[in-house]
C-alpha cells in the first residue's frame, strides 16, 4: 500500500507588500454579501432603481413629451412663486427620502449587526490581533467595506437613474442635473462613513449585538421626533432638527448637490448639519482608537 500523509511544508515564497487593511476589506465585503438579508436589501434597492427607469421608459412610450407636460401641470397645481416642476437636483434630493432612508437603517442594522455579533461569537478579534495587523489598519479595512456596501445600495442606484435620465432627456436637461453625480457621491460617502464609524464605536462600547442594535435604533428613530418637538417649542428654530440624523443627511446632501439655498426655514443650517456628521465621525474615531489602544475590543 502506498501511503503519503498530507505533509506540512515550509513557505519559501515572497511576502507581499500589500497593505494589511486590504484583506480585511475584501473579507468583510465577502462576508457581508454572504448575509441573506444584505443581499435582499441590496436587491430591493437595485430593483427600485430599475423600476424607476422602467417607469420613465413607459412614460416615453405613452406620453413622449411628458417632461413638458410635467412642467405645465406643475404650473397649474403649484402656487405662483414655486419653481417649475421639472426633474432637477431637487428631484434627486427627494429620492433620498423615499428611496435611501428606508434602506439605510435596515442595512446598517443587518450588515453591521451580523458582522459584529458573528465576530463576537467567533471571538475573531483574537485571531486578528495576534497577527501582524495594527488596530488602525483593521478599522480602516472594516470601515471602507461598510462604506462600500452602503454606497452600493444608495449611490449606485441613484447614479443608474441619473444616467438613464440624462440619456433620455433633452440636451439642455444635463445642465439641470449636472451637480448630481459628484454631489451625491460626496454626500453619500460622508454619510456612510459616519454611520459605519458610529456603529463600530457603539459596538466597541457595548460589546453586545443586542445593545448595539438597540442603541442604533434609538439614535435613529428617537432623535427625529425630539428634533420636531424642539423645533416647535423654540418658536421654530430649525437648527434643532439637526438632532435628527436623517435630517442632517438630507440637508447635507442638499448642500452637496448645491441646492441648499432653496431649503426653507423648516430645515437646519447646512453648516450645522455638516458639523453634526463630522462630529459623529470624529467622536466615533476617537472612541474606536481609544478602545483599541486599550486593546479592550479583544475582550
Amino acid at each position, binding site marked *: 500500500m502506498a501511503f503519503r500523509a*498530507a505533509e506540512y511544508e515550509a513557505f519559501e515564497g515572497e511576502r507581499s507588500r*500589500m497593505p494589511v487593511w486590504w484583506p480585511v476589506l475584501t473579507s468583510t465585503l465577502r462576508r457581508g454579501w454572504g448575509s441573506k438579508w444584505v443581499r435582499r436589501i441590496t436587491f430591493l434597492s437595485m430593483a427600485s432603481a430599475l423600476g424607476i427607469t422602467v417607469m420613465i421608459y413607459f412614460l416615453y412610450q405613452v406620453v413622449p413629451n411628458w417632461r413638458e407636460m410635467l412642467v405645465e401641470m406643475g404650473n397649474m397645481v403649484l402656487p405662483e412663486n414655486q419653481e417649475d416642476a421639472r426633474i432637477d437636483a431637487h428631484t434627486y434630493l427627494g429620492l433620498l427620502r423615499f428611496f435611501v432612508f428606508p434602506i439605510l437603517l435596515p442595512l446598517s442594522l443587518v450588515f453591521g449587526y451580523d458582522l459584529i455579533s458573528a465576530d463576537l461569537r467567533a471571538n475573531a478579534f483574537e485571531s486578528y490581533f*495576534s497577527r501582524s495587523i495594527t488596530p488602525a489598519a483593521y478599522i480602516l479595512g472594516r470601515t471602507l467595506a461598510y462604506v462600500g456596501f452602503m454606497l452600493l445600495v444608495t449611490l449606485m442606484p441613484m447614479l443608474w437613474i441619473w444616467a438613464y435620465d440624462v440619456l433620455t432627456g433633452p440636451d439642455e436637461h444635463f445642465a439641470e442635473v449636472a451637480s448630481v453625480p459628484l454631489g451625491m457621491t460626496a454626500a453619500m460617502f460622508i454619510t456612510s462613513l459616519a454611520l459605519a464609524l458610529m456603529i463600530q464605536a457603539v459596538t466597541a462600547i457595548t460589546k453586545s449585538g443586542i445593545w448595539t442594535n438597540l442603541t442604533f435604533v434609538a439614535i435613529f428613530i428617537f432623535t427625529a421626533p425630539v428634533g420636531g418637538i424642539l423645533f416647535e417649542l423654540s418658536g421654530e428654530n430649525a437648527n434643532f432638527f439637526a438632532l435628527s440624523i436623517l435630517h442632517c443627511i438630507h440637508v447635507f446632501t442638499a448642500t452637496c448637490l448645491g441646492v441648499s439655498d432653496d431649503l426653507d426655514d423648516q430645515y437646519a443650517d447646512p453648516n450645522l448639519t455638516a458639523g453634526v456628521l463630522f462630529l459623529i465621525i470624529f467622536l466615533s474615531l476617537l472612541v474606536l482608537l481609544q478602545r483599541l489602544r486599550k486593546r479592550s475590543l479583544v475582550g
Partner: protein
Amino acid sequence: MPPPVLELAELTVRYGRFTALDRVSASFDGGALALLGPNGAGKSSMLRSILGLVRPASGVVRLFGEDTEKKGALMRRRVGYMPERDSWVPGVSAVRGLAHLAEICGLLPSDAMLRAHDTLHFVGLGEERYREVSSFSTGMRQRYKLAAALVHDPDLLFLDEPTNGLDPRGRVRMLGLIDRVRKEHGKHLIIASHLLPDVEMLCDSVWVLDEGVMKKSETIANLTAAARGGQRVRLPRDDSARFAEAARADGLEALPGEGADEWVLIDESAAIPPDRVFRLARACGTRVLGLKAAARSLEDAFLEALEGDAD
C-alpha cells in the same frame, strides 16, 4: 550567537488593580517550552502580552531579539498563536477564513489560498475545508486553530491548551501533529497546558507560574528524576485494595497512583526489586498487570513545586 527566541524583562501585566504577572524575567533559547501553573497563574496573560493582545503595564518583551513594543506587528509574522478559546473568521468557509488570516500576515492571495488548503490537509481537515467553522465539533475546531497558527509558516508557535476538550483519539492526533511540526520542521514551541502527560511528551523544559510569579524554570528531565527506587504497579481492579493491604503489611508504603487500580510502592530504606512485587501479588492471589520503576510524574513534581512554596 543568535538572540534568544523569547526574552522577558521585568514583564508586568495588570487588569485594573489585579496584577496578573508580576515582574517576570526569563529567556527561552528555542526548542519546546511548557508553561505550567494552576488556573489564574498568569499563563494566558503571559502569552497574550507577548502577542500584543494585552498591553503590559511595564517591562519589555523581545521576540527574536526585537522589542515587540516597537516592531510588534512585523515580528508577529514569525509567530503563530493557537488561542485557548475558539476563534475563527465567521461567515466564510474554513479554507477561505484561513487564507484570509494568511493574507494578513503578508502572504499573496494565491499563496495564501494554496497554503490554507495544504495546512488544512495537514491537520486532517481536508474533507471539511469548505464547511464553516461554526459547524465544527470541538475536536475539529482545535485542529482548525492549529492550522490557523501554522498557515503563515511561523518560526515560533504559541499553543494555549492545545488538547483541551479533545477525545482520546483527537488528543493523540493533536499531540502527534504538534510533535511533527516541532521535530520535522524545527518550529519552536511554547505550550500552556494543564494536561501534564502532554507536556511531558512534547516539551523539554518548563516554566512554572503561580499567582503571576515565576516559581521555577527547569528541564523536564530534572523535574521527573526517578525517586527513591519505588515501583508503580497495576492490578485487576477487584484485587487492587487487597494488594495494597498486603504491601503495607509487608512494610511498604502504598500510595494511590493515577487510576483506582494503580499503586506506587515505596520503601523508605531501599529500592524495591521487581521480584518482590511479583511475590507479593502471588501471595494475595492476583496478577500483576503493569510494573515500572516509579519515576515521579510531572504532576507530582508540579504539585510539589507549588505546595513546597506555600508551606
